[in-house]
């Protein structure tokens, strides 16, 4: 009798999701579904509130990417009030944002996703965690990671008022200028950040890329999808986390579209599946063809690997060098989901270099950091690249600036089609003959952990413990087993 397995995420924040794996009579996986929570409840919560409050409210959606929500929201307010911040304010915002990106990526590389590779995907559960990482790389490295993150967060607190829920951005600029003392410290931190990112790249190369088994896993067909990719790019089509145009490349790496975020609804539509509360964004001009990859399918991806795939390069020299090395090895675009970790390390290097560049830009000491908005509000749309991918905030307000409608298109939503395919493919490739053990399930989990999904923390959990309970069903819908 065939069976169905469901990996059901714990109820967290705004809901829950699950992974269902269906087995046939022989115990082979025939289909796997991935469902994740939505943020629509939050959008309703936003209605009737003053738009100026949104950067503070949205940064409290969850503790994972508050700065991304804060910044996307502030940019939406710039647009809402038709006010262009001074150059100094834009640079400080970008500097602040890169501090956040570096810190967040470091968390994933060393603690969340890293153990899969640094310790090993088939290592015992009790070792496949941050403790295993420390055993492998040494206590000194652990202290270095903790220390670097702390330094970054302290600097964010000094610039943004708070680390987790910053009060930095206001419509038309930022709340306070920088002084020479902070900038002096920022320059030192910038140098340390670049050294730290270079060190991380070396760790990744030494432990992951030099291990043939890991490299084979990264490049294996089980973790590969040929989809479209999207990310923000600057005027030279280089990766930019804070601003730019949205660029989409096709599975062959050819530019498919490049557009201002104001036109995102011309390019992105959302499909509904009866088995999930979450909508599946897809490229409107290609259409929804189901959970399949290829040039004929409108499914696209965001996040580090997608950003690198959709750009022509990096805007800083060390990151560019690392970018070229990765694509020399994997080809471009790189379709291997697990290469997301490699791309993330390259982005750490970019963020660190950008921090150093901006910290040494004299313009960040300019005391003119805000243009006061005067226009009547109506519609505002803002975009940034969150660590997990493109994040769009879209507000419609009345004349007083009270939100009538809000739409938040978050990274995990963009990715849900591809994540669903990743889980399905990994499960089909790995679960055979009814053998469903923890090691195999971890390898299925790796398929979605690579995206660093931000289901408001629910699946943002650690290797070594299943982030979601697993339900096993037969094809008649009978529950056979729950694994937690």
């Amino acid at each position, binding site marked *: 009798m065939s069976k169905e397995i469901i990996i059901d995420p*714990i*109820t*967290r924040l705004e809901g829950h999701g699950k992974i269902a794996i269906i087995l046939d009579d022989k115990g082979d996986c025939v289909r796997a579904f991935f469902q994740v929570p939505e943020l629509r409840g939050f959008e309703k919560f936003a209605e009737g509130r003053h738009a100026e409050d949104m950067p503070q409210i949205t940064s409290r959606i969850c503790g994972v990417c508050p700065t991304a929500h804060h910044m996307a929201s502030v940019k939406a307010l710039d647009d809402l009030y038709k006010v262009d911040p001074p150059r100094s304010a834009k640079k400080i915002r970008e500097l602040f944002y890169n501090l956040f990106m570096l810190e967040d990526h470091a968390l994933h590389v060393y*603690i969340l996703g890293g153990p899969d590779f640094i310790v090993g995907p088939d290592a015992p559960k009790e070792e496949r*965690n941050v403790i295993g990482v420390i055993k492998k790389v040494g206590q000194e490295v*652990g202290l270095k990671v*903790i220390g670097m993150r702390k330094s970054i967060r302290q600097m964010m607190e000094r610039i943004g008022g708070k680390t987790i829920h910053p009060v930095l951005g206001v419509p038309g600029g930022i709340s306070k200028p920088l002084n020479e003392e902070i900038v002096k410290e920022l320059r030192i931190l910038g140098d340390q950040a670049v050294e730290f990112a270079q060190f991380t790249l070396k760790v990744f190369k030494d432990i992951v890329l030099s291990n043939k088994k890991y490299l084979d896993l990264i490049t294996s067909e089980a973790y590969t999808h040929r989809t479209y990719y999207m990310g923000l790019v600057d005027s030279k089509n280089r990766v930019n986390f804070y601003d730019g145009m949205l660029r989409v490349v096709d599975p062959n790496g050819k530019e498919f579209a490049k557009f201002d975020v104001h036109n995102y609804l011309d390019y992105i539509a959302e499909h509904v599946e009866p088995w999930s509360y979450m909508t599946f964004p897809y490229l409107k001009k290609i259409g929804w063809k189901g959970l399949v990859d290829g040039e004929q399918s409108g499914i696209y991806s965001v996040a580090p690997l997608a950003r690198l795939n959709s750009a022509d390069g990096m805007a800083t020299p060390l990151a560019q060098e690392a970018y070229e090395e990765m694509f020399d090895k994997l080809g471009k675009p790189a379709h291997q989901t697990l290469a997301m970790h490699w791309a993330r390390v390259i982005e750490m290097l970019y963020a660190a270099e950008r921090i150093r560049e901006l910290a040494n830009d004299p313009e960040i000491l300019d005391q003119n950091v805000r243009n006061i908005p005067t226009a009547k509000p109506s519609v505002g749309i803002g975009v940034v690249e969150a660590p997990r991918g493109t994040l769009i905030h879209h507000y419609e307000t009345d004349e007083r600036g009270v939100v009538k409608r809000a739409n938040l298109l978050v990274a995990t939503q963009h990715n849900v089609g591809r994540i669903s395919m990743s889980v399905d493919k990994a499960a089909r490739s790995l679960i055979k003959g009814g053998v469903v053990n923890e090691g195999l399930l971890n390898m299925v989990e790796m398929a979605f952990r690579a995206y660093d999904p931000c289901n408001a923390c629910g699946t943002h959990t650690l290797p070594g413990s299943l982030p979601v309970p697993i339900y096993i069903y037969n094809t008649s819908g009978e529950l056979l087993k729950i694994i937690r």
Partner: protein
Amino acid sequence: MPLILFLGNPIYSDDRIGLIVGEKLKNRFEEEGFEVEILEKSGYNLVDYIAGQEIVFVVDSIVGEVGEVVLIENLEDLKILFPRSPHYSGLPESLELMKALNLAPKNFFVIGICVKDPFTISDKMSPELEEIVDFVAERVYNCIKLLHLQPRNKAKI
């Protein structure tokens, strides 16, 4: 100096209770020699505060009988309980990390304030919790004072 972290999120219904209780007790505890932080943070974000401290108390919401105040006895309990709180994900692992780096506090206590719903996005608490906030604050105060007088080293980290 013993450290108390009051945790919560002001946009998640009953999850704000830790913040409210923290505001009520902050001055009192500070006058008695405690260091107090009221934080909208969780998991690994707490490492910056906890690492290297001697005695740490964490006060947070947890799903349960409204108004009950429970002491979470050890790390394994914390791991089991985290689906019942928005904030425990990552905290057990953070403690393990600090232990591995010799930065873990000698005494670590999690005090859970039982609430009905810490997950729904709302700017209002459950009425039954709203009614007993002062009572809950007193319970938390007494719990911490008792533990501080007799540290039990219950966090088996």
